[in-house]
Each structure stands twice: as C-alpha cells, then as structure tokens.
C-alpha cells in the first residue's frame, strides 16, 4: 500500500477542497473568497482534446439534488495548461487537476503533461464519471480497470505530485475499488461522485447534492473500516460544516464541496473557516 498515512506528503493545509466541475475555472469562485484559504481547488476534468459538452438542458433540479449532463465541457489539456492553470496557481490555491481519458495511453499522457506543469499539487484521476461510455471515456467501472488507469498515471507522474483516484460511492464495490487503486499506486482516494442517473428526457446524467450524501457517507465509513491506512477524501452533498464533520468523523481526511457551490458560492470558504475554528479554538474556550 502506498496510501499517504501521515503528515509527510499530505499537501492540503486544511480539509476543505472544492469538488471537480463545481468551481468553474477558479476565477469565478475567487470572486467570493480566497482560493488559497481552501485546502485545495480541484479543476473540472480536463481531457486531451477540447470538448464542447452536451446540448442543454444540462442541469435540472431533483429533490435535494441536481441531475447533470454537462458532457465534460473543457478546453483540452493544452489550452488548460496554457490559458487557465497559471492564473489558478497565482491565486495561491493548492491546485488539483482532474483528468479524464479515452484510453490508458491518454490517461498516461495527461498525467505526464499535467504533473510536469508548474504549481500542480495533485492529479485527480476521474474514474467515476456517471456516464463514461456515453462520454467516450475509458470504462473504469471494474476495479481492475480502475487500477490499470491508476497504474498508467503513476508511471508517468512527476515526483512530488500527489496521485488521487476519484471513485464512485457504490457501496457494493467501493472497498474493492479503493483497495485496487491504492495497490496500483494512488496516494489517496476521493470517495464519491455524482451517481449514475437520468435526465427527465432519459439522457444519461449524474445525481449530486444532499440526496446522495448519506450514501457517500456510508461508502467513506466502509472504506475507512476496511482500509484504515488509506487517505480518504469524502465527497457527496456536503452543504455545511456539520456535514463535513460527519465525513471526517467517518474516517475521511478531507472533504470536497461541490453542488453546494452552485447554491451558495461562499460555502467552501465558510466550511473551511468553521472547521478551522474546531481545530484551533479561540483563546479562553474550553478545549
């Protein structure tokens, strides 16, 4: 096991990160707070070539959640590295670049080019897109497939850059998948992503938000119990500091805040501040 197990090598100064695909390019979220005050900023998934994304409607409300079919719109790796990454690094954020590929070779290539870019703290391998086949992505549903992606990324990743695998909060498979990706070289796992769902018109989509939170929390608890040495980042419907504390108590080392940002762009900053007060109570308070 290569999972990061102590403070050495854990690059995030506090446990609150943004979730992939929920912070724009960083510039927009930066209007509402200091990205450097978050544990880290995770980019939307970047693919080798630009993707225009799906036709609208791309998001619809669902009880306590959103269903999305964004189609992984992004400018492609080259344009991202050239046009967006430098400004993001300049904000002082610990930058985590999410990558998604159509093949093992593409994952390896992305891992190599992104990991070499100045200022990248970690690479997050997206192994849990809610509709990988529809998006033309490499199918990483099976743990052995997820492990082969992580292995490809590990081989080509620059030293000192953390490798994170983002896996689906599928209770039946999550422990097996987490074990496989860590054995293949992941330093940490993000447990949770939008769950496979359908848009009202039947197109494939992903359900996110508080609707999926209890289910993501269960998965974090299962992975933490089975693999106590693995660094887990919990993700799924976290709306406030109490939600974040629940994931940390279940064994997560950090959390990602996603859909909540669409409702209130200040959420991640506020949770980071509140958790900071937990860790460092004001003078005079009982500890």
């Amino acid at each position, binding site marked *: 096991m290569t999972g990061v197990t102590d403070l050495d090598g854990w690059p995030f100064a506090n446990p609150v990160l943004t979730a992939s*695909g*929920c*912070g*724009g*390019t960083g*510039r*927009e*979220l*930066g*209007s*509402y*707070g*200091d990205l450097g005050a978050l544990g880290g900023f995770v980019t*939307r998934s970047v693919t080798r070539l630009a993707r*225009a*994304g799906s*036709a*609208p*409607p*791309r*998001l619809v*409300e669902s*009880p*306590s*959640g*959103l269903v*999305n079919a*964004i189609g992984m*719109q992004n400018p492609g790796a080259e344009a991202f590295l050239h046009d967006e990454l430098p400004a993001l690094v300049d904000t002082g954020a610990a930058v985590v670049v999410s990558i998604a590929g159509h093949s093992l070779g593409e994952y390896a290539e992305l891992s190599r080019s992104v990991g070499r870019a100045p200022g990248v703290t970690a690479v997050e391998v997206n192994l849990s897109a809610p509709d990988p086949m529809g998006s033309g992505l490499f199918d990483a549903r099976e743990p052995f497939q997820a492990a082969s992606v992580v292995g490809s990324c590990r081989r080509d990743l620059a030293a000192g850059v953390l490798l994170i695998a983002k896996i689906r909060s599928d209770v039946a498979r999550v422990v097996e998948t987490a074990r496989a990706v860590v054995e293949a070289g992941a330093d940490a796992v993000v447990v949770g992503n939008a769950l496979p769902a359908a848009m009202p018109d039947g197109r494939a989509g992903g359900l996110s*938000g*508080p609707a999926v939170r209890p289910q993501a929390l269960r998965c974090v608890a299962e992975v933490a119990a089975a693999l106590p040495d693995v660094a887990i980042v919990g993700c799924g419907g976290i709306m406030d500091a109490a939600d974040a504390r629940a994931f940390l108590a279940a064994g997560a080392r950090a959390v990602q805040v996603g*859909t909540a*940002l*669409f*409702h*209130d*762009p*200040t959420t991640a*900053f506020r949770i980071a501040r509140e958790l900071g007060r937990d860790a460092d109570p004001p003078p005079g308070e009982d500890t």
Partner: protein
Amino acid sequence: MTASENGPTHVTAELLATKSVGAFHHLSLVAPGVGERSRPGSFVAVSVGDGHLARRAFWIHRVGPMGGHRAVVEIVVEQRGAGSRALATLPVGARVAVTGPLGRPFALPRGPARCLLVGEGYAASALTTLAERLRERGCGVRLVLGGVDDDHVLEPLSARRSVGQVEVAVGDLTAAVVRALPESDVVYAAATEKTHRFVAGAVADLDVSCQVALERPLTCATGLCHGCPVPVVDDEGGAHVVRACVDGPVFRAGRVDWAAMS
C-alpha cells in the same frame, strides 16, 4: 463575504417592498454592495429555498434609494415555476440569499448614437437603466416594448416618462422593429429567443451594432457549473461554447451561432 472589490458579492438580502404590476411582481431588495456595482444589463441570482439548489436569475430593473437605503435593487418576477412562485409570494421583511451583480453588461456607444431598445415581457427590465445611461450620454433612445398581452408589457407609462419615444407592440413586435431600424445606429434587445433571432437576422446586413441580453436556463448563474452553454463564433470563424452567465449574458448578436443554439 467577498474577496473582490468590483466583482459580484453574495449577501443575505431583505425584501423591503413588493408590488404587483400587470402580470409581474416587482421585488425591492436591500442587498448591500450589489446595487452599487450594478451596470446596465447586470443581473442577480436569488435562492428560493425549499430544497431548491438552483438559483433563479433576474435582471436588475432599477437601483435607487428607498426607505433609508442607498442602492435598493428592484427585480421583476414573472411566476413561471415553483421557484418564481415562491419568490413572488414572499412577505416583506423576508430574507433571501442574493448574488450579484453578475454577468457582462451592455457596452455603451462612445458618442451620441440613435439607439433602438427592444424589450419584451419581464426581460425588458434589463433595459431600464440602460435607457437612462444612454439618455445621459446624449443618445436618442427609441423603445419598442412588447409582451404577449397588455399585462405582460412592462410599465409602458413609466417608460414613456423616462425614455421618451416608446412604441408598445402587443403580440408581435417585429413590424415595429422593422419600422425603427432604418433610423437606428445601435440596437439593444432583451426579449424572447424568437425575437432575438429575428432582430439578429434583421441587422445582419445593416451597418448597425446589435447586442442581445440572452436568457438561458441557469443553475448556478455564477460561472461554476457550465450549465448555460452558448455557441459562439469568433472573429476568425472558430466555433466555441461559452457560458451565458459569465461570458454573457449580453452578446453581440453577430457573435452568437444562432443555428447551433438549441
């Protein structure tokens, strides 16, 4: 709290006053920092509660002093779904989360120009402060104000007082636009997509600058979710998909790839 002086801010606003005018509800919001930074074409995102995660977007209709507050923001709500119904029935004194001012505003002409404003339904609220700014700059302003029926024409009397030349065109406003175009240097449209397409087509071969304030289905309204794609064509003919909320909502009509927009 906000990290930026000039960008949007996210605040808890207080509903100071409401009024019902025709088919629309006007909400006056005390939203510190939002009105002060607003420009013609700016909009706000409002939370509607009850477990609704998506925001609802509204043009900033007016900004002004009210009840001892310096820059109260007035928006125009048409009840169309659960969210707008909830907002329209909020009691005075209610608190709502408001983010703004959002979006790229209208570009104003450098010198005096003859300006045609095309407003339809509640969307005409995007043009109210624009008309004022244009008049202050010495521009001629002619407003074509439309709506599906009289109740859906936004404040024609008030528009006549502040704009001057107003033509109300209930139902189909295309004839009024065609009549006004030969005497216009600049066109601004805040209307239905059908009318935007008509206006964009009508000005395509004329030496007229035209901006449209697009309304696309929005989720976050702040540039985070990539949920409001607008296909555009750049000056070199390259096709791109941009976000209505931060790359717009005001676009040059000629930049929008109308054929690709679904």
